[in-house]
């Protein structure tokens, strides 16, 4: 067992009580928490560019379902409790890794059928049954995956029976074996080796086991320990967002340390030099990433030269990069809300950066750009929400041509997706106001559907050809106004089209008129038109937002 006196005391305390159903509940909770703490790390281990790839998230959702099943249960019997856990995991299984995880739990539950408390022999039997059940689920098991880690863990537990009858000791050995097994996965599966990562599902299983041990040892579960990432998991693109004032240069150094690397000392020393420190490990060498001020530009290189051999160094001027990408309507700086697992997330299609911003300010979790002449594909819509850490998704297509693609996206995913068929931007915004992220999914969807009819939508655009619809005659390039998608008038100027539209919409019976100005209308013109609308409708509140949408001079919400 561990030699740390603090941990020994904790283990002693744990051993005083029998490991019954209530203790299992705590262990499951610890697994879930520890897995969630390391969720992003597991996610970053993906090698296949398939939408099924969010292993960390999938495993968290599966474990969450398992825990939810037992969270309020007063059951004392370990076997009965573990059956509930398995049942929850089965119902909540997401993705490949989630399905395998649920099979492991199913096997474990079968082994412990009506066991009152857990002891070492039953733990070994449980892991063996879990392994057997998991392996039965596939004709050609691929080694170097979560299956291999489960197999190695089970084998270690069986061997440990000869030397111990302590559950804690056995779990310690199992966790160590899982760790070793995860590290070996690249040797078994070439695609992992090529990508420079270990298997994500195996890593997830390791965290589940380690979470239980950390709980027993009284160690914290909510702070990630990983200081070294696999090389492929270093995401240097995102570090640009983290630039602090004074950190003008980005330095990336590949080096081989002469002796082993003491990460604590290494990090302490580097923190004296710069910020945004990341360390990646691959095939015998390390890659260091750091942001430094100009006067310390060469210090990271000199430091690494002292502790090893530098094989490559690259320096980039961040200020120049920032200037290049700083301005402009970059979508990456949209203030999108962060979704917590289990919350409802909304994905909105927005035709312009300004409208995207308005949606973001109302709490949208992801934006897909697209509109009248640039319909996003089903795949783009799926990609927007696949990565969100929740399975309750609402899509606002905000254009009648995109409703179909959104519905197709809803059918092609295992997530629980509802399309609120907003046909215009104002309808989408109106629906957005009803969002309560923690609310009950179906009732929120219903609320949002009802909100669609509570706003009138006006659109000012130009005709692309000569046409006569609903008695309105239009020539090519003439300014036209649409009310709720129907052509209502043609006008010589944008201003006249706006005023004519508001009249047709009986805007004097409403309270608020919001104008979203298009990309091709000058600021001066927007002010002039807004002023003339204000004088025509003194009773109404007139708001102007920069929408930046193409083709539409104005999109108008009347509510």
């Amino acid at each position, binding site marked *: 067992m561990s030699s740390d006196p603090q941990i020994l005391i904790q283990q002693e305390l744990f051993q005083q009580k029998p490991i019954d159903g209530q203790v299992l509940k705590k262990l499951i909770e610890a697994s879930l928490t520890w897995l969630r703490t390391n969720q992003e790390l597991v996610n970053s281990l993906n090698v296949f560019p398939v939408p099924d790839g969010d292993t960390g998230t999938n495993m968290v959702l599966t474990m969450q379902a398992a825990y939810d099943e037992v969270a309020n249960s007063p059951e004392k019997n370990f076997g009965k409790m573990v059956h509930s856990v398995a049942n929850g995991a089965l119902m909540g*299984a997401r*993705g490949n890794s*989630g399905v*395998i995880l*649920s099979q492991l739990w199913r096997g474990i539950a079968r082994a412990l059928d009506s066991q009152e408390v857990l002891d070492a022999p039953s733990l070994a039997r449980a892991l063996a049954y879990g392994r057997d059940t998991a392996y039965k689920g596939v*004709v*050609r098991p*691929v080694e170097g995956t979560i299956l291999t880690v489960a197999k190695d863990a089970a084998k270690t537990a069986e061997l440990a029976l000869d030397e111990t009858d302590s559950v804690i000791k056995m779990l310690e050995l199992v966790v160590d074996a899982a760790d070793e097994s995860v590290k070996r996965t690249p040797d078994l599966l070439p695609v992992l080796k090529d990508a420079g990562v270990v298997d994500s599902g195996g890593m997830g299983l390791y965290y589940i086991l380690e979470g239980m041990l950390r709980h027993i040892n009284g160690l914290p579960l909510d702070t990630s320990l990983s200081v070294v990432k696999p090389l492929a998991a270093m995401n240097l693109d995102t570090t640009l967002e983290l630039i602090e004032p004074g950190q003008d240069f980005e330095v990336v150094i590949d080096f081989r340390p002469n002796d082993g690397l003491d990460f604590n000392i290494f990090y302490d020393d580097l923190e004296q030099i710069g910020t945004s420190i990341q360390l990646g490990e691959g095939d015998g060498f390390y890659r260091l990433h750091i942001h430094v001020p100009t006067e310390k530009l060469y210090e990271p290189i000199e430091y690494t030269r002292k502790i090893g051999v530098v094989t490559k160094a690259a320096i980039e001027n961040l200020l120049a990069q920032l200037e290049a990408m700083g301005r402009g309507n970059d979508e990456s700086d949209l203030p999108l809300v962060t979704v917590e697992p289990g919350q409802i997330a909304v994905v909105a299609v927005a035709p312009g950066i300004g409208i995207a911003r308005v949606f973001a300010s109302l709490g949208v979790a992801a934006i897909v750009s697209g509109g009248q002449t640039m319909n996003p594909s089903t795949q783009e819509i799926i990609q927007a929400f696949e990565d969100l850490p929740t399975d309750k998704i609402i899509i606002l297509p905000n254009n009648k041509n995109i409703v179909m693609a959104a519905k197709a996206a809803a059918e092609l995913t295992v997530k629980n997706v509802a399309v609120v068929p907003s046909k215009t931007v104002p309808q989408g915004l109106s629906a957005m106001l009803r969002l309560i992220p923690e609310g009950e999914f179906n009732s929120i969807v219903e609320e949002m559907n009802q909100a669609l009819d509570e706003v009138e939508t006006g659109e000012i655009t130009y005709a692309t050809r000569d046409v006569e619809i609903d008695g309105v005659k239009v020539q090519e390039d003439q300014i036209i106004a649409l009310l709720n998608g129907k052509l209502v008038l043609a006008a010589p100027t944008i201003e006249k089209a706006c005023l004519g539209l508001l009249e047709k919409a009986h805007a004097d019976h409403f309270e608020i008129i919001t104008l979203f100005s298009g990309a091709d209308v000058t600021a001066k013109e927007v002010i002039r038109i807004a002023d003339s609308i204000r004088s025509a409708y003194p009773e109404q509140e007139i708001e102007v937002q920069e929408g930046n949408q193409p083709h539409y001079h104005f999109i108008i919400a009347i509510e």
Partner: protein
Amino acid sequence: MTDEITPLGSIQVSPKAISSIAYHAALQSYGVVGLTSKNIVDGLAQVLVKDPTYGVDVDYDGENLNIDLYVIVEYGTRIKAVAASVSNTVRYNVEKALGMPVHEVNVHVQGLRISNFD
């Protein structure tokens, strides 16, 4: 069928070749324990046959490549998640090998194999 014209001649990939790729990818997917004939009248649902196109239908109409899989799934797994996963795996492997997009992968769960009762 799926042909490509190069200056040196044309490349043709037969449906049978594509079936083989899909077949192997499907059998490596977790939860799939076998492929089976789509037509029950053809006989009893056989698991684990050696013909590498058994249980896979490939249809190419000159524009879209569609794949139908007739699978047996392990009892006790979440079938929806298994089906989504096999669909992704087959699509990924076929697209990677062929370099052309797959329009549809339809997964037909023809039966369940019960290894052990709970």
